[in-house]
């Protein structure tokens, strides 16, 4: 490698950083409040409907325009919803800690787990059958209510958290740290419907999606412009696309709790 050339190249390219901050401020000041929404494909669709209508009869034109308007609103609404949902997913991947329950309604109490998760990997899980597990800084604590004993051992073998926080479980919406998770999740999701609902006194949006052949129902805050207090209030996962059987129900109880005690992630030995 020619050192002189490398030095010259470094000097040459340094010029492109000049005035950066000033230009940045100018650019941001000149941006419209939000990027343009995706309306172009809708327009194209409306035109395709409209042209033959114009050539034939006014009634057909009126009907076509109505269809166009309906398609337009549906498309724009769908786009806004997908942005809101993607934003909630992305925010979920950044929370410092979260407290939620996972259950399968209709089955016995054993099919329930209450979870406290603290990024990057600490957790406490209280299962319906009395088993309590925590992981804190690589040390795993296990207490089995039937035996009353507490086992403490260095974290070596992943346990049930795999199926709660990682593989398949809805907890992965919060626990997965892969930066592209939200995008990949969205790419596999198609929005079926979106409606305003009231959830525990808050104005929220219920979004129904199909994701890898299963129906998912999310309740998210309706306001997509500000950082949500909670990314998801509730998520339901069904066995199939028709919503046949509710297989998992996540209710988020709190997010980013500032005073989460350290003892949450430790089971004291008796």
């Amino acid at each position, binding site marked *: 490698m020619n050192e002189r*050339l490398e030095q010259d*190249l470094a000097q040459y*390219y340094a*010029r492109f950083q000049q005035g950066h901050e000033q230009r*940045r401020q100018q650019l941001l000041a000149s941006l419209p409040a939000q990027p*343009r929404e995706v309306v172009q494909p809708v327009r194209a669709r409306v035109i395709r409907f409209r042209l033959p209508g114009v050539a034939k009869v006014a009634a057909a034109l009126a009907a076509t325009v109505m269809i166009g308007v309906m398609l337009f609103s549906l498309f724009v609404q769908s786009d806004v919803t997908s*942005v809101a949902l993607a934003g909630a997913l992305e925010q979920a991947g950044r929370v410092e800690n979260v407290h939620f329950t996972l259950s399968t309604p209709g089955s016995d109490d054993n099919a329930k787990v209450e979870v406290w998760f*603290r990024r990057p990997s600490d957790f406490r899980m209280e299962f319906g059958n009395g088993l309590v597990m925590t992981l*804190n800084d690589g040390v795993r604590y296990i207490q089995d209510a039937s035996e009353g004993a507490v086992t403490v051992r260095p974290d070596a073998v992943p346990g049930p958290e795999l199926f709660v926080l990682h593989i398949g479980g809805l907890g992965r919406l919060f626990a997965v740290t892969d930066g592209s998770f939200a*995008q990949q999740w969205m790419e596999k999701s198609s929005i079926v419907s979106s409606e305003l609902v009231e959830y525990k006194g808050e104005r929220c949006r219920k979004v129904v999606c199909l994701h890898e052949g299963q129906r998912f129902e999310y309740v998210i805050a309706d306001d997509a412009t500000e950082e949500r207090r909670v990314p998801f209030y509730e998520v339901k996962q069904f066995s199939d696309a028709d919503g046949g059987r509710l297989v998992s129900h996540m209710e988020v109880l709190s997010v980013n709790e500032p005073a989460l005690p350290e003892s949450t992630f430790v089971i004291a030995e008796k």
Partner: protein
Amino acid sequence: MGLSGGTRLAASDGTLVLRALEGDQQAFGELYDRYAALVRAICKDSTGDFTRAQDLAQEVFLRAYAKLADLRDRERFGPWLVSIARFVGREFRRGAYRDRHVLVGLAPEETPSELPKEDERLGELAFAMARLSERERLALNAYYLQEQNAAQASKTVGVSRSTLYRLLAEAREKLERFIEEREEKK
């Protein structure tokens, strides 16, 4: 262990695009921080003029912002932006903007006379770079303006890492030869 948990990683391009789509202009500002220098360099290839390149780069970002919702694969923001920069550069070369003093409603802050003058060596280098192929220049631009990160640069240019290394090697070899020839003629 503190309650705050693990180390925060820099947001991916896709995440920043999503946030920008939600109206978070600072997220777009972060994308600007990542790619502005590269876009300026690409524009400089089209304009041959540093000040105009700066204005053209602003135009590129404004167009990107306006079309942000059209970007399908948000993680490919970099290559997408580069394609816009090349397109705007071609427009400039065709003369569409040649006589426009203000490209994006922002008057240039600097006149050419106020810019730092390139010293002779850098002038020779710029002259030699103008003789490289567009792909070779793009490879150099992406590599040197993205912290010499070959993985990132190859993604931005849209080539494999081995192709990027080949382009870089060819570009360096040509630059050395051009500069030597110029010096021999003096």
